[in-house]
């Protein structure tokens, strides 16, 4: 069963497309790296997959429930919740509004925290965790949601090397369990390690296996503003460097 099918999809806000010409699919067990500059449409794609935006043109079919692992900078660090409270939020989508999470939900939240190696920090306030640990708590929340498609929004931003390794292993495990995993990232090297890559810059620049990440595709993706692309050992460009003056546009979040 194909998890996501997009055909000539255009999505945007107020009738104005932010992202056009999307034709891609996600199969179970696939890890898809989503590359693009800030404001290039990554967050818009996430909102479209969640069903928050209706297509302006084309077709989008999402066959499974989606869960999102947002950037942790967006959540409030002074908020009075523990890691367990956050993981438990993943159970809300399966409960009617008058039902509170009960013992069964607590158990699955604790199991999810154990799966991201944070069982011993379940009672720790979310804001006191490191950036990488917070990211893992949010992955645990996605596990509790038990979604067929997991969307991670730049999970490696501001995360130390050790946590990044744990996160990368988690992404592999999510996919190995038959889920589709979409990872928005700035790290071209990392995207090369995924099964598929989707390059966005207001439109779909490329979609396919990692071999589509040629220098010209990367330049088109990042607006031709890559000033320094060190050559990798295989002669391929090793890293995309973002122009510093690109800003996130205000419409990415509500």
């Amino acid at each position, binding site marked *: 069963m194909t998890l996501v099918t997009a055909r000539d999809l255009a999505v945007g806000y107020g009738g104005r497309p932010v992202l056009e010409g999307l034709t891609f699919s996600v199969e179970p067990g696939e890890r898809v790296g989503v590359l693009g500059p800030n404001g290039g449409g990554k967050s818009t794609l996430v909102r479209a997959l969640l069903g928050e935006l209706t297509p302006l043109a084309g077709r989008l079919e999402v066959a499974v429930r989606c869960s999102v692992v947002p950037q942790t900078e967006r959540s409030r660090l002074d908020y*009075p*919740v523990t890691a367990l*409270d956050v993981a*438990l*939020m993943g159970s809300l*989508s399966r409960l009617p*509004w008058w039902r509170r999470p009960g013992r069964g939900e607590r158990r699955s939240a604790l199991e999810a925290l154990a799966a991201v190696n944070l069982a011993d920090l379940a009672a720790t306030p979310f804001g006191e965790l490191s950036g990488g640990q917070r990211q893992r708590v949010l992955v645990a929340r996605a596990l509790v949601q038990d979604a067929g498609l997991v969307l991670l929004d730049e999970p490696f931003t501001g995360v130390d090397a050790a946590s990044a390794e744990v996160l990368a292993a988690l992404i592999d495990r999510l996919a190995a369990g038959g889920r589709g995993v979409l990872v928005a990232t700035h790290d071209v090297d990392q995207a090369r390690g995924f099964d598929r890559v989707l390059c966005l810059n207001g439109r779909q620049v490329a979609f396919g296996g990692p071999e589509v990440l040629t220098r010209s595709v990367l330049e088109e993706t990042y607006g031709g503003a890559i000033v320094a692309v060190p050559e990798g050992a295989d002669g391929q460009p090793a890293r995309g460097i973002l122009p510093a003056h690109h800003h996130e546009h205000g419409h990415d979040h509500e």
Partner: protein
Amino acid sequence: MSEAWNWLSEPWGQAFMQHAFTEVVLIGVLGGWLGCWVLLYGVSYSAESLSHGMFPGLVGASLLGLPLIAGGAVGAGAAAAGIAGLGSARGIDRDTSVGVVVTSLFGLGALLALAPDSPPGIQELLFGDVLAVSKRDLLVTALIAIPLLAVLWTLHERLLAVGFDRAGARAIGVSPRPVELIVLLLVAAAVVVSVQALGSLLVVAVLVAPAACARLLTHRLGSMAVVSSVFAIAGGIGGLYLSYYAGTAGGASIALCLVGAYLAVLAADAALRGRAIPLIR
């Protein structure tokens, strides 16, 4: 020892003090718990605006001899409608519309209350009269407070999820708008129910001060709500003692105790952490 005991127990021998005690416990549990969400959702200004904006409703009820709660409810509804109506006009932002509507309504209330043929008792509307709470008032308070507490209990995790990450709430199956609307409706109802005891000017104290105290002392919402309610009840009882022995106004004494407790906790927190400027966790 027995002298201290007498001092402590003496006020509660009288029926009006027993009623006042029950009223501050009910309002304390509701205000303390709901206050946590007032703080976390950043709606303190809305709470204060509602309580001031309902003033003409209170005056009207008092002139017509209707229950204060009915006047308060009508007044709060009119204030909310006015704010929403003016806020949707072009070129007027939300803060401005709240400011305009609330000061107009409060002025209107004062005009009515200070008219020569108005009955005396305006202080009661501004500052409440917890010592005049009757058995029937208590019943009304309980009948309103208990369903509100049930809503808070039932929606706990959803309130938590929306406050934690509003933009991401929909992705975990919680719509933020209805949840935020419910918080405002709960605040309006709590203000209406507390106005008899604390009056239009002081009611916001029970919604903000205990929760602010609890925020300094806890880092989980469950414990924050418990600590906040305990503070609110303790402040209420402390205020009743103050009022009884110093002969001060009940509502004002309670507000003073609540804010005093907050300042004491703030200072203790700052001293314990060795900081000059306390940071709110």
